C-alpha cells in the first residue's frame, strides 16, 4: 500500500503590507515495494512503445534502426508479465507492429513477448516523420483499456516533417490526461521544442540519446521505471482564498515543470494540478506562489490548503500560512527550500537564454548568461549541470561565473545541456 504525504516548507511571516506567499511542497510516496508490478486492484498497466521507422533511421549503415530494434526488444523483455502492451512503428503515419490489429493490446507473457520481438526484429525503416499521428495511434491503444496506468516511450531521430506543427499540437492536446509519455531524441537531427512540448503536456520527460549504442540502456531504464509506477493518477489540489491569485505552481524537483496552465477547477476556489503516475517510493517538490489580500499585523490567514488526490480520493491537507508581523527578524527570514528552488529556476532560465543567445550569434549575452549558470549550478551543487556547461564553456572561476564560450561545441553537447537544463538538485537535508 502506497502512502502519500505533503509537507510544506515556507516562512509564514510577512511584513506589514506583504502579499506574496512562497512555499515549497514536498510530496512523498512511500510504502510501495517500488520495483514490481503492484498496481492497485483492478487497474491494468499499459505500455506502448513507438519507434521511429523513418528513412533516416537507415543512416550510419543502418546502425540506428538496428539499435532501435535491439532497444525495443530489451524493453519488451523488461515488461512485467501481465502488462498490456503494444509496439507501434512511426513514419508518415503510425502502423501497428504488435499486436497486428491497430488500437489493441496484448498481455505480456513469455510467448507474446517472443512473438513481439520476432516482429520487431524484422522492422525496416522507410518513410517520413509525422509524430502527431504516432501519438494519436498510441492514444487509440490506451483508450481500448479502461482505468489503466498508461505509459508510452516515444523515439524519434528527426524533426516532425511530414505533418504541420498544428497537427502535432492538436494530437498532443487530445492525449493530455490519457497517458504519460517519455520522449527521446536519437542523435542531433530532432527538434528539442517538439519533444519538450510532448513530454511537458503528457507529464513525462525529454532527453537526448546521443548515439545508437546508448539506446538499449535507456529503453531498459524507461521501461523499468514505468513498471515501478504503482499509483496511476495523482493530483495536487490547491485551495486558495477568495481574492487571491495563484501566481504559479511549478514542479521544481526532480525537474522544473510549470503546472500553472494545467490547473483544472474542481470546486469554488479549488484547482487540481495533475502529477501523473507515481511509484511507491518517490518524492517530488513543488514551488507555489500565491498573492493574497493583505492582512493587518498580527493576523493569520491561510495562503493555500494543499491536498493530494490519489485515484480520485482526497487526502488530508497541509497548510500554507501567512502571518503578518512587524518583527523584521521573522519576516525577513528566508526559507531555505524556497530560496534553493528560486535559484534552480533561475539556473534553468539562464541556460535557456544563454543557449538561445549563442545560437543567435550574440556571444556577449551567451557568455554572461552561461557564466551566471555556472555560478548558480556551482553554488547549488548541481554537479551534473556543471559538467554539461563545461562542454559548452571554458570555466575560469565557477564562484564568480567567469567563463569563455568554447569555439568548438558538439551539437549533441549543446542539445544535452538544453534538454537537461530543467533538471534540479534537491536541498541538502541537514
Amino acid at each position, binding site marked *: 500500500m502506497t502512502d502519500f*504525504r505533503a*509537507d510544506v516548507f515556507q516562512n509564514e511571516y510577512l511584513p506589514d503590507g506583504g502579499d506574496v506567499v512562497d512555499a515549497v511542497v514536498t510530496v512523498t510516496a512511500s510504502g510501495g515495494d517500488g520495483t514490481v508490478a503492484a498496481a492497485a486492484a483492478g487497474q491494468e498497466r499499459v505500455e506502448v512503445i513507438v519507434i521511429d521507422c523513418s528513412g533516416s533511421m537507415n543512416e550510419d549503415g543502418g546502425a540506428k534502426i538496428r539499435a532501435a530494434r535491439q532497444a525495443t526488444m530489451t524493453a519488451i523483455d523488461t515488461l512485467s508479465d501481465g502488462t498490456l502492451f503494444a509496439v507501434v512503428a512511426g513514419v508518415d503515419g503510425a502502423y501497428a507492429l504488435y499486436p497486428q490489429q491497430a488500437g489493441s493490446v496484448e498481455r505480456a507473457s513469455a510467448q507474446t513477448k517472443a512473438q513481439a520481438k520476432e516482429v520487431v526484429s524484422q522492422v525496416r525503416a522507410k518513410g517520413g516523420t509525422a509524430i502527431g499521428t504516432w501519438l494519436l495511434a498510441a492514444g487509440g491503444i490506451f483508450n481500448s483499456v479502461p482505468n489503466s496506468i498508461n505509459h508510452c516511450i516515444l523515439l524519434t531521430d528527426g524533426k516532425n516533417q511530414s505533418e504541420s506543427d498544428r497537427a502535432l499540437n492538436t494530437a498532443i492536446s487530445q492525449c493530455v490526461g490519457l497517458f504519460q509519455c517519455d520522449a527521446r531524441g536519437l542523435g542531433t537531427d530532432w527538434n528539442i521544442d517538439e519533444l519538450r512540448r510532448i513530454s511537458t503536456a503528457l507529464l513525462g520527460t525529454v532527453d537526448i540519446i546521443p548515439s545508437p549504442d546508448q539506446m538499449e540502456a535507456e529503453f531498459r531504464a524507461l521501461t523499468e521505471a514505468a513498471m515501478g509506477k504503482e499509483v496511476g493518477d495523482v493530483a495536487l489540489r490547491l*485551495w*486558495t*482564498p*477568495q*481574492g*487571491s491569485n495563484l501566481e504559479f505552481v511549478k514542479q521544481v524537483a526532480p525537474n522544473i515543470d510549470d503546472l500553472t496552465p494545467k490547473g483544472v477547477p474542481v470546486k469554488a*476556489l479549488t484547482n487540481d494540478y495533475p502529477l501523473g503516475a507515481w511509484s511507491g517510493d518517490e518524492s517530488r517538490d513543488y514551488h507555489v506562489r500565491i498573492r*493574497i*489580500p493583505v*492582512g493587518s499585523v498580527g*493576523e*493569520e*490567514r*491561510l*495562503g493555500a*490548503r494543499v491536498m493530494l488526490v490519489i485515484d480520485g480520493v482526497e487526502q488530508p491537507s497541509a*497548510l500554507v500560512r*501567512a*502571518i503578518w508581523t512587524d518583527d523584521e527578524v521573522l519576516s525577513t527570514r528566508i526559507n531555505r527550500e524556497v530560496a534553493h528552488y528560486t535559484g534552480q529556476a533561475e539556473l534553468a532560465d539562464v541556460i535557456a537564454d544563454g543557449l538561445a543567445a549563442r545560437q543567435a550569434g550574440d556571444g556577449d549575452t551567451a557568455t554572461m548568461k552561461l557564466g551566471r549558470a555556472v555560478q548558480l549550478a556551482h553554488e547549488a551543487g548541481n554537479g551534473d549541470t556543471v559538467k554539461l556547461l563545461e562542454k559548452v564553456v571554458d570555466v575560469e572561476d565557477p564562484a564568480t561565473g567567469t567563463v569563455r564560450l568554447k569555439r568548438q561545441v558538439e551539437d549533441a553537447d549543446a542539445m544535452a545541456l538544453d534538454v537537461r537544463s530543467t533538471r534540479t538538485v534537491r536541498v541538502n537535508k541537514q
Partner: protein
Amino acid sequence: MAMACPNCGEVAVDGAQWCEACGADLDGTAETALSTASSSPCISCAAPSTDIAADGYCGHCGAKQPDPRDHLEVDLGWLVMVTDRGKRHHQNEDFGAVVAVDGNSALVVCDGVSSTDNPEQASAVATEAAIAVLEQALRGSDADLQQADLQQAMSAAIGAAQEAALTVPTKPGGKGSPSCTFVASVARASDDGITATIGWLGDSRAYWIDEAGQATQLTSDHSWANEQVRAGAMTSEQAAADRRAHTITRWLGDDADGLEAELVDSQFGNGWLLLCTDGLWNYAPDDASMTTQIAAHRGDTLLTTAQNLVNFALESGGHDNTTVAIADHTLVAETPVAETPVAEPAVPVPASTPTSTDEAVVTSENETEPVDEKRDLS
C-alpha cells in the same frame, strides 16, 4: 466537576461526558483531535460558521478564527481557573481544570511542551483525565479522606493523565511524542485545617498562600536550572541565565517512561492553593516576588485576582501561555455551609524546602523567548 470544554470552552456540568454546547467528548479517553470548530461567522469576511474548517480557517477568505482556548475561565466562586495564550505564542498549549466537592478541592494544570507534536491536545486530555480521577476520589469517599487516600488519588490521577497523553497522535515526520507538564493538588478541609497532596512533573508549580498572604512554593521544578541548583552546581541566578534554564527534565507523554512524578503531602491552616504555569512564575520566580505580585493583584473576587495575575503576566511581556488555578479554602469557610470557624493561622508545612532570594526579579528586555523544551533522553 467543573471543567472547560476543550473544544468550545463551555463549562461542563458535573460528570458530563459530552459538552452540551458543542457535543465534544469530555471523558478524556477519546482519541479525537481537539478542533477549534466555532459556531460564529468568520471574523474577517462574515462567512457562515459552516464555511469554517475544523482547523479554524475560513473556507472563503482563509482568515484564522480565534481559538476558544486563547482565553478560558472557570469560576466556581472559591475555585477559579484562568488560562491565556499570551502575546508571543500562536496557540494556548496550557490547560487547567478545577473541581469542588463539599469544601474539598482539586486543581489540575498542564503545560504542553512546544517542542513536541500536538502539545495542546496532550495538556487538555491529561488535565481532563486527572481531574476526573481526583473528582471521583473526593466524591466517592463519604467519610474522612486520610493523607494516604489523597496520595493514592493523586498517583491514580497522574497515571490516568499519562495514559491520556499517550492517546494523542503524533504528526507524520513530526517533532516528537505529545508531551506536557503536570501539576495537581487534591485537598481535604477539616476542622484541623487543610490536608493536601501535590503531584507534579516538570516546571508547572503549586503554591500555598497563607492567610497573611505569604506565598510558599510547594513544588520543586523539574527543570535544567533547578537541577543544577539542587545539585549545587550553580547558583539560581547562574542557572536561570543559562539558555537551557527552561528545559524540563520530567513530563507526561510517550517518551516519559521512567520519569516519575514527585508527590508532597502538606498540612496547612487556612489559605489558598495556587497552581500556575511558568507563564506566570517567570515574572515572579521566587516566593518573595510571588507574594508581592499576589498582594498587588488582589481583586474583589477570586476570579478577578486570577485574571489580574494573568494580566500581570501579559503586561510583563506575555512571552508564554499563562495559567492560574486557585482554590481559596478561606472562602468555603466563610460560607454558611461550613460552620467551622476559621482555624488559627498556622505555618504551612511544605515537604520540600523552598528556595528564596531577596528580591523580585523583573523581566529584562533581553530576555530570551521561553520555549518549552524537553531534555533529550537519547
